[in-house]
């Protein structure tokens, strides 16, 4: 926590209260604890204060005060980020957008919705679905995560295989710039798609809150498919399931989703939710096809044949919407179910070219054996986006050390295989050290140039993304363990 002189602390609190009111400023240490981390719990830092503004103008005023008092600004949504991207590493004023959570307009004719940044992802589809429309990005945290957070991390989800990620579905947004000015980037709420000039909209999506504070967003809505077929294909081995994934893609089929869960995950889910997964299956695939009935039928036959060719033990078809919904609910609670298996776990978010999925799965098995740690997998196989969950007990320092090493090795291997260390969770504070493995020095310099354009003072969400960023003492300890 940044120690401010008591007089400065009082000045800060007074000025923030003057903008947003007493109820919307948190500055007592006991209450700030709620904001000490996100869903990445290996590092914790207390912000100096948290404000909960209600309007864009309030956000802008808060940003201006932070400029005057030279305090860092940390934008925050629901805090579901998995990479420590909303940590107040060096203290500062955290701007939580959770009170700005309204859906301002669902424009059915133009298939757009205008929402405030704190609006929860799933609410948009809930509002749009009576009109036959939905918001496509569907991270597993969608009942809680916010649109502002989705923009900050360029969130994905199981259905990005066919539909694309957040950048493909956000037309424009309002941003409070680090100097306190208010800008609209991209398509305006009543405007056309093409705005000319540089694509600042696209450049700032995925910038992890380092370019400004998003306050409102205009998102694209897409038509709800007329027909779905969702299969659960059960295999004896991860290899068989991996090859099925490759064969489906090679057949020219782009399913809406293509997800894999291995034995440890399916067992944990079965114990928790009793969904009917066989306990001895090596791996299961969820394959979802959507579109018009005829094409879905045609592709379903191909998918079934491919599963059989790869010796699927069983291919079950969800018989109605309720079964389909149950399957997805189950998939999206997989991380939660793992909580039953182990006191702690750390999840990784590597990506490999699709054809390298069997290779990375094999490597993860080797890492698991070498470090004597269980590493179950639940992931977006169709995108090559893996989520190994490394299970450990934080009371055992040696296990913590091995868990960190295992994570490092897996991500390094992803880069070696031509992939990336993060497909949807972001770099944040967690994966800073990998940036130099994945990018050359000049590549990082170019990214920093872009940051300077938006935030010359580096006031917005500092100490993230780039090597050389400051670490807190607690985190340094953990890193020492791993060294």
């Amino acid at each position, binding site marked *: 926590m940044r120690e401010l002189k008591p007089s400065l602390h009082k000045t800060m609190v007074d000025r923030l209260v003057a903008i947003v009111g007493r109820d919307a400023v948190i500055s007592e240490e006991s209450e700030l604890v709620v904001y000490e981390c996100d869903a990445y719990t290996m590092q914790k830092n207390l912000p100096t204060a948290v404000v909960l503004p209600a309007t864009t103008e309030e956000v802008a005023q808060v940003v201006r005060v932070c400029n005057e008092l030279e305090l860092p600004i940390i934008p925050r949504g629901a805090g579901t980020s998995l990479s420590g991207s909303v940590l107040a590493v060096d203290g500062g004023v955290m701007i939580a957008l959770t009170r700005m959570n309204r859906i301002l307009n669902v*424009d059915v*004719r*133009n*298939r757009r919705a205008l929402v405030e940044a704190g609006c929860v992802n799933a609410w948009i589809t809930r509002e749009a679905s009576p009109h036959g429309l939905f918001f496509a990005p569907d991270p597993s945290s969608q009942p809680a995560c916010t649109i502002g957070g989705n923009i900050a*991390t*360029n969130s994905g989800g199981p259905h990005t295989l066919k539909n694309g990620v957040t*950048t*493909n579905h956000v037309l424009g947004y309002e941003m409070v710039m680090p100097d306190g000015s208010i*800008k609209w980037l991209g398509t305006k709420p*009543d*405007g*056309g*798609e*093409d*705005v*000319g*000039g*540089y*694509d600042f909209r*696209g*450049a700032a999506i995925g*910038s992890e809150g380092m370019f400004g504070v998003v306050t409102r967003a205009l998102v694209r809505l897409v*038509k709800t498919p007329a027909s779905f077929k969702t299969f659960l294909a059960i295999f004896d081995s991860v290899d068989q399931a991996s090859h099925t994934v490759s064969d489906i*893609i090679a057949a*020219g*089929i*782009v399913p809406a989703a293509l997800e894999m869960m291995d034995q440890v995950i399916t067992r944990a889910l079965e114990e928790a939710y009793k969904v009917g997964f066989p306990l001895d299956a090596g791996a299961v695939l969820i394959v979802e096809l959507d*579109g*018009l009935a*005829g*094409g879905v039928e045609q592709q379903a036959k191909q998918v079934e044949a491919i599963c059989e060719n790869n010796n699927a033990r069983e291919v079950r078809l969800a018989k109605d919407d309720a079964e389909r919904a149950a399957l997805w609910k189950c998939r999206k609670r997989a991380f939660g179910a793992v909580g039953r298996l182990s006191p702690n776990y750390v999840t990784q978010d590597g*990506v490999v*070219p*699709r*054809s390298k999925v069997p290779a990375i799965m094999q490597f993860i098995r080797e890492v698991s054996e070498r470090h004597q740690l269980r590493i179950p997998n639940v992931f977006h196989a169709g*995108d*090559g*986006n893996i989520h190994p969950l490394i299970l450990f007990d934080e009371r055992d320092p040696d296990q913590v050390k091995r868990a960190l090493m295992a994570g490092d090795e897996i991500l390094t291997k992803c880069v070696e295989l*031509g*992939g*990336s260390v*993060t*497909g*949807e969770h*972001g*770099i944040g504070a967690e*994966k800073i050290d990998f940036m130099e493995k*994945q*990018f*050359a020095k*000049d*590549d*990082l*310099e*170019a*990214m920093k*140039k*872009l940051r300077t*354009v938006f935030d010359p003072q580096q006031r917005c969400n500092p100490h993230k*993304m780039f090597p050389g960023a400051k670490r807190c003492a607690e985190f340094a300890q953990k890193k020492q363990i791993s060294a």
Partner: protein
Amino acid sequence: MSLLRPSNVANLLAEIVNCEKVDDIDLSEVSRLVEHVPEDMTATVEDGMALADFQQQLAKGGQWLPVDPPNPESVTIGELLANNLNGPRRFGCGTVRDWLIGVAVVLPDGRLIRNGGKVVKNVAGFDLCRLFIGAQNTLGIIVEATFKLQPLPEAEMHLAKRFESLGQAEACLEHIWDSTLQPIVLDLHRIDGSDLTMVVSFAGPSADVTFQSEELIAMGFEDGVSLDYDARFRSKKHTWKSIAPGNLINSLSQLPRSNFVARAGNGLIYHDGEPCVGEEDSSLELNGLERRLKQEFDPENKLPELRRQ
């Protein structure tokens, strides 16, 4: 002032350092297909390859890059990206912004940078790929690009119907818009003094294409039409206007004597009338953010200035 015509990327890096002002860059010799991995549905290509040649290579693996700007035989990958070019299938396929996953860019100071990568999902670092698309080589010169691809559709069909008035066309358009049909082209055009015509295309599994086409034929559409009107019209002098798709008919009614091609699903109108006042940001001045961006990436102003198109 000079024209750069490098034979490879190393050559360009050396030349650009010594160049005071780059007038034009001819990358026709930097035009290899670096890699196409059908199993990964990705491909990497150098900037100078013509789009049609690239598509031909991809077709060997049953895939394509789903963009269709006019004149693909002469348009290079570099031009496609620098100007964010697109065509009628934009409604169903999006633009190149939706498909680019990695770039290599030569910066004016002679450094080669890479951004993104060759995997379809990747959020490591800031997204400079999006930034360089449509930037007209004013910040750096894209020399290599990696795209995610799509399977070539099993079938594709184009249909058209003529209308006597915008009102009639509007009724049909709204009907299609609200239906379960999933067109990849939804255009309206009136060119060379001919009738107002709506063009609708379907692509995908043949079962879907046949089923949807039959529905349109029942509405009086004829099949077997071509999409060549787009290139024909856009090769002549024209201006454009981008509006919310719901305002399309209203906007077209304000162009009673103009020829036009309109992307009804996107709200994009190419027309040969006068640009309306306030229609686009006609200011040639860069705004503050744009100026800072140009200053950061091209401090010596070697590269061209951004044109408002």
